[in-house]
Structure formats: C-alpha cells, structure tokens
C-alpha cells in the first residue's frame, strides 16, 4: 500500500510541475487532470472511497472538462516564452515561494514529526456518515452554499443571454 502512495504522490508532483511548465494549454489542463486523479487515488488509500470518487466526478469529470472545452473552443495553440514578465516578480517570487514552503514544512513537522501517521480508521468516511454530518451539523452552510451556486448559475445565464 505504501508503495502505491509513493507512486501516486510522485505522479501528482511531476504532473503539477508539468501544469506550470507546459507551453501548450491543452497539455497543462491534462496534467492538472493527472494531478486530480492521483489525489483521488491517495484518498482511496486513506480509506475514503466516497471522497475519492467525488473528487474524480466533480474535478476531473466536470470542471476540467469545461476547461478543456474552452481551450479547444479558443483553439489556443503553442505559447512562446512570456514577453511581459515583471523583473520584480522574478527576484521576489522564488524567495517568497521558498519561505512559504518552508513555513508549511515546519508546521507539519512540529505537528506530526517526520514519521507521523494520521489515524484514518478513527474517521468514518462512508457516504452515510458524510451525509449525516452534512445534513445535520452543517445543514445551514450546506444550504447557503447551494443558494450561492444557484445565484452564480443564474448570473451566468443572464450574462450569456443577449436579449430578453
């Protein structure tokens, strides 16, 4: 099982780098799908099959399809090296990134140590348990999110519609 984790964690990291480094937008989008799918496998290894499946259905199967569709519609081809990159960003960006990553690493190290384990068995990740939590403890945030999404959908329809 552990070897599976290393394979898919490595795949996720490589694919994530590929998202940034690819020059063709379609390849970037596809790399992002590989990242999301690898994360789904890691959820599966953590005994959370429901989260894993929802991850694939929502992110890889719905959101990324729209990304790919838009890229195809625009027919965005190969991109050359960026012409308008701020010098400021080049000098400040990498150190800031390193500082941020170091901070995250230190926090995790302090919390769990180098060989810490999360107790996955203590959490019930079955669809029924998630449903109970979502519709009892968090029913108000859940419904508010639903209304927010509905408003966004209606807004998109209004914006896309040319005349009434």
């Amino acid at each position, binding site marked *: 099982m552990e070897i599976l984790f290393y394979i898919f964690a490595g795949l996720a990291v490589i694919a994530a780098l590929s998202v940034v480094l690819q020059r063709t937008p379609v390849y970037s989008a596809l790399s992002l799908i590989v990242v999301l799918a690898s994360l789904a496998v890691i959820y599966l290894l953590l005994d959370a099959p429901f989260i894993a499946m929802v991850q694939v*259905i929502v992110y890889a199967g719905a959101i990324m399809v729209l990304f*790919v569709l838009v890229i195809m519609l625009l027919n965005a081809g190969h991109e050359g090296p960026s012409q308008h990159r701020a010098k400021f960003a080049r000098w400040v960006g990498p150190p800031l990134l390193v500082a941020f990553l170091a901070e995250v690493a230190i926090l995790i190290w302090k919390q769990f140590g180098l060989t810490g384990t999360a107790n996955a068995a203590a959490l019930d990740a079955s669809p029924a348990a998630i449903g109970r939590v979502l519709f009892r403890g968090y029913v108000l945030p859940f419904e508010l999110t639903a209304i927010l999404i509905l408003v966004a959908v209606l807004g998109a329809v209004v914006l896309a519609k040319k005349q009434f």
Partner: protein
Amino acid sequence: MTMSSSTEFLLIESVIKIAVIMFVLLTAIAYLTWLERKVIGHIQARWGPYRVGPHGLLQPLADGLKFMFKEDIAPLEADGPLYWLAPFLAFLMAFLSIAVIPFGESFTLAGHRIALQITDLNVGLLFIFAVTSLGVYSVALAGWSSNSKYPLLGGLRSSAQMISYEISLTLGVIGVVMIAGTLSLREIVNQQAGLWAHSGVLSLLPRWNLFLQPVGFLVYFIAAIAETNRIPFDLPESETELVAGFHTEYSSFKFAIFFMSEYANMITVAAVATLLFFGGWLGPVFGPAPLRVILPVFWFTLKVFCFLFFYIWVRGTLPRFRYDQLMAFGWKVLLPVGLLNIPLTSAVVAWMHYSGGFRLPGSG
C-alpha cells in the same frame, strides 16, 4: 489457512476473473456488432451480413482482421501523443467500469467464496459515474488532436452533449440510491429480491426498482442512450454533416478501438440499468448446485441482452435529433423531470420511514 495463501488465492482468483470477463466482453462486443447489422438489416427488409460463415456469424472475425491489416493513416498536422492517447483512453474508460459490475450470486468452490464480480466496491455506482465522466476526454481529445475541422466540431458537440446528459444520467439513479440507502451495486440488487405480495396481482410482479422509480428509469435510459452517442443522439458522429465526427481522422486499429469502446459502453449502461431497475441477476432459480450458480448469470445476461436489443431497435426506428433539439430536450425536459423525481421520491421515502407502514426494499 494462513494469511499469505489467502492473499495469493485472491490474486489468482482476480487474474482469472479479469481474463474470463475480458474474453467474454470482447466476444460480446464482436457479436453485438453482428447482431446490430443483422437486426438493422431485418428492420430494413434486408438480410444483413450473410456471406462469411453461416448467417454471417464469422463476420466480426473478418472485420477484426481487416481492421488490423489496414494501413494506419494519421494526419500530418495531428498532435502526436494526444492523437495516440485518445483511443486508448476511450478503451480504458469503457473497460474500467466493468470491474465493479456484479453479474451473479457468489458461490463456494473448494472452501473459497467466489463473488461473480471483479471487485465489490462499496461506492460501486459512484465509481461507474466517475469513469463515465472521464470518458468525455477521449472524445474531446480525439476531436482536438486530429487538427481537422470535422473532428473538432464533432468533439466539441459531443463534449457538450455528454456533459449535459451526464447530469440527467446521475439524477435518474438518485431515486434508486435513496430507496436503497447504499451505493453498492450488489446490495442494491439484493434488496430487490422477492415479489411484491404473496397473493393477488402483485404476486406476479418481482420487487424490481423499476416499479418504484419508473420516471427515474426513463430519465436514466434516455440519458444513457445520449451518453453512449447512439441514435437518436448520435450528433457527435452524424455522418450527414460531420463525415464521422470525432473519429473522422482515425483509421485501422485505432478506429476499431473507438468502435469497440462504444459497444463496451453500451453493455455497461445496459448492465447498470439491469442492476438498478430490473433486479440484476435475480430470477427463478432451481435445480442442483451448479445450475443455481449458472441461472442467475443467465438471467443477468438475458436482461442485458434485452436492453441491447432495444438499443438496436431504437436505432432502426428513430431519426436523429437536430443539435438544438438535443440540447433543449436535455436541459428543458429531461433535467427538470429528473429533478422533480428527487423531492417526490424523498418525500415518499421519508413518509414510509416515519409511518413504518408499507416496507420499501431498503428499509428492511
């Protein structure tokens, strides 16, 4: 029994099951193409394939050989890796979903319990939807990477179509999931065992979910036809306007792979419809032990076959939709009907739950 020998046995069992299922599936796909040509032929008062073998029974074999020996032509301007990836992605996604489909009761052989299913996932239904939702990529990528106008238009059309109808596909089965209270396919089938009553007219009807969810079934079934790009929803490859849609530029074996994936997808959606609405492998079982194992598999196959026949029948009967009709139907008819079905079902399920009167399959 030690731990290692049981793990070993599981591994061997899985490999054998996968090999057998792949063989059966590939044969079924081959003969589904034969059946389709035969049935369409008879619907149109023709004979269909008749030359290769008796009643054209060797036609699939001849077709396969022909596909293999045809020259593989790729467009010069095609995007190499993605052009290759697309058909294999289609194949992978089509066959992956078969892994969670149960097709019979489990039985005991030499002290080992063998389930007639490659793997029993407790979120099996979600797994199928996850894999189906990834199937869109093969079509979209095939259309884009061919770098040609007809495949691009076909790819765009079918991506839009598959996303639109996927929502209805999911909405159609939510009613069944609510009644069953589980996402495990084996569990859902087991809950449909028995008859509706011990006497009277109802005793003739099996406890299939179809009778509880007729609307859900219709929504699922129509959406499934669209999802597999079959007539009357075969806009992605409507030959009268788009040559052959997303696979226009594919030839030889890569085309064969697209073709096989389409038929594998047909079998998958038919199998899911059978499991969710028609009681899966349940049916009259009698006789000695071996027959008790074989009969459920036979019932399952028979039900799936009926669905596949219906698919072909529809193809021989209905004309193709126009694209705007397709979208309007998906979003303005199928989606609202599927949505309405959910509060209705949940109200009834909640009422049953609290009144404790009439028992639903999942409540016992």
